[in-house]
């Protein structure tokens, strides 16, 4: 069995970790667009109910010196927000009425 990527308290999120623990918005955006609506909904349904708890967990650590597993949990929460737009707003992976438009995020704070 692979080593855990997330804090023990959030072991139930492990099946999502390899796909959604992504450090950059460009990676999370690409992952959303190549996922089916069923996959996005399943991830959202699994993580959203414990999202508040996960935020509180991450908040135990200073932002600039988080343990690696907590930082990955924060990345998973970033992905949850990315996916929330598909699930809550558009009901599909892509933005409605955006045609072939692209807006690239070229700079962002880390983590």
């Amino acid at each position, binding site marked *: 069995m692979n080593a855990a990527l997330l804090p023990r308290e959030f072991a139930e999120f492990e099946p999502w970790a390899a796909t959604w623990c992504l450090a950059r918005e460009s990676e999370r955006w690409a992952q959303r667009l190549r996922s089916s609506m069923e996959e996005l909904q399943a991830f959202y349904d699994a993580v959203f109910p414990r999202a508040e708890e996960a935020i509180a967990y991450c*908040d135990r650590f200073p932002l600039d010196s988080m343990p690696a597993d907590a930082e990955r949990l924060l990345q998973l929460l970033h992905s949850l*927000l990315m996916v929330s737009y598909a699930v809550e707003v558009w009901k599909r992976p892509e933005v*409605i009425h955006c045609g072939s438009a692209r807006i690239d995020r070229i700079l962002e704070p880390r983590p």
Partner: protein
Amino acid sequence: MARFQKPAEGTWTEHYPSLGTAPVSFEDSISPAFYELEREAIFKRAWLHVGRIEQLPRNGSYFTKELPGLRTAVIVSRDMQGRVRAFHNVCRHRGNKLLWEETPRDETCGNARQFVCKYHGWRYGLDGACTYVHQENQFFDLRKDELGLAPVHCDTWAGFIFVNLSREPRQTLRDYLGTMVGALEGYPFHRMTERYSFRSENNSNWKVFSDAFQEYYHVPPLHTHQLGPTPEAQNPEYEFEGAHYQLDGPHRMVTTSGTHKHNWPREHLYPAEALTRSGNTGPWDAPDLGEKLPGVNPSGIARWGIDNFQVFPNLEILIYERGWFVTYRYWPTSHNTHVFEADLHFVPARSARERLAHEYAALTFKEYGLQDVGTLDGTQMGLEQGAFRQFPLNDQEILVRHFHKTVGDWVDAYARVRAEKPAQ
């Protein structure tokens, strides 16, 4: 009935009589010939915002900036005395682009004691002076002290760095910005150092894109989802009205007002909005910026939302009631293409919770911005079809009217000067 007090004339547009109320031509957004004039008349004469002072944290810091429609690129640096300077990004020897990393087309930044050309190894101090010529004794009558980089006029205001490509700017930066924009001088921009940057290459004239972001009339129909998840909230018939409009020289602004999202009933919010306490007007939990915020909400509107300052020609500064700000820049690359740049600035997050609130605001900007980009490609196609020559603008679109008039005025003034002084 008007939701907000309008000027004595009855409308914002008639308060500024030189604007008129007639339908407007957008020929200026589809004509290649006009674009060529615009490059000279506007972009080579106006002060252009190229970066923030935080991008030059130390003496020796530099960044490069592409100005593609101007076929120009600049180096902006802080020299060893701390002075901010700008130069054309070109080596004096054989004209190679001086500073770049992997590819000459991409911008770069860093820290340096000197600039070194990759091609033949010529070196320049941060003040632009040529300090080293490789195999200098092979040249003929070379005067190194006359071979510095080509300087570009550069000045800063409130931490915003501007350049001016004219030989001699007609106004100082401070005079150019005028009193309305200038009043923002003491706003704590310098505290909002956490930056999310975006770039988009769009198939529309730069003004077509800017037009969308200087009126809110389009928001209920185009961004219906932005209003909320419920059928009551998603009403494309919702009537928007700006609370205050103001013009000052070539610059213009609009103030919005409305119920703040953080006061909305939970059922009218998306679950992720409630989770992150954030959304399209930014994080709900505002940083403490002190009592007095100079220059914002100039007419003292109740339930102030956003101040949208349009700094001529291509800079927009959006100041949000929740204590963050956004800048947009529109760089023409042809008569029907442009590069759009957006920067979101926050007081740095101190916790994961704050980070996620900023992230959700940044996501929201992109999701709805993509709807604008997609639609405005369609506007450009529609305008180029030539089915109509004149377009009606309402009072909520006063800034669009003023913008196109100002562009026309600058181009006319340039054409007049050129007619009086024929080329040598």
